[in-house]
């Protein structure tokens, strides 16, 4: 998961969605104007209005890309983080939550700084959990 690739994929999906909706709205307005036997001027105004309205609505419903929120950023890791935290907590639910929070913070910081997590996510998260435990011991 490289951050800029995820952002690129998100922006591309949103652009395709918006342009698709906009072009469909323009085509629809064109057909309606033609069926209603409106003049060329009226049809042009209706098409521009349909394009502006549909693009505005579609873009308004578009959220921010994944890199702008930690929750979105770490959603694919959530299950692995919980598993690793439970492994380290040894059955203690409160400790598991604490470890999960600390591992999440470390993972978010590393991904934001451009780290590219390896395919074996759990090994990477276990290494982060080791860091958490190490920092806990040194305090």
């Amino acid at each position, binding site marked *: 998961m490289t951050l800029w690739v995820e952002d690129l994929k998100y*922006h*591309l999906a949103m*652009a395709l969605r918006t342009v698709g909706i906009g*072009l469909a709205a323009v085509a629809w307005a064109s057909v309606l104007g033609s069926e209603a036997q409106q003049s060329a001027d009226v049809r042009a105004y209706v*098409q*521009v209005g349909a394009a502006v309205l549909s693009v*505005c609505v579609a*873009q308004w419903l*578009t959220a921010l890309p994944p890199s702008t929120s930690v929750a979105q950023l770490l959603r694919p890791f959530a299950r692995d983080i919980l598993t690793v935290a439970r492994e380290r907590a040894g059955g203690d639910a409160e400790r598991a939550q604490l470890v999960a929070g600390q591992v999440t913070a470390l993972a978010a910081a590393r991904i934001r700084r451009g780290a590219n997590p390896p395919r074996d996510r759990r090994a990477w998260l276990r290494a982060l959990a080791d860091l958490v435990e190490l920092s806990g011991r040194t305090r």
Partner: protein
Amino acid sequence: MARHLLTIGLVHAGVLGIVYFLLLVGDALFTSYAIVLQDAVFVSYVAQLGWLQRMAADVKAAIAFVVALSALLQMLLFVWRVAIGREAS
């Protein structure tokens, strides 16, 4: 911030290319059909003008307008939402 704005611009340029490419594919299919049917009038018309010239000016303008408007709004809303998020935090 600049990376996102650049990405939005590049992505919309790509989308414009995709839409025009799909139209080109459609035009090629229609042209092949006319050649198979040996429609001499259409084939000579195709030989005189490129596909982009044959496409109606208002269709080209509508596509370019929608893509440009989408890029502009996506950039503006991104900048606005990021600014609001920073103020809130």
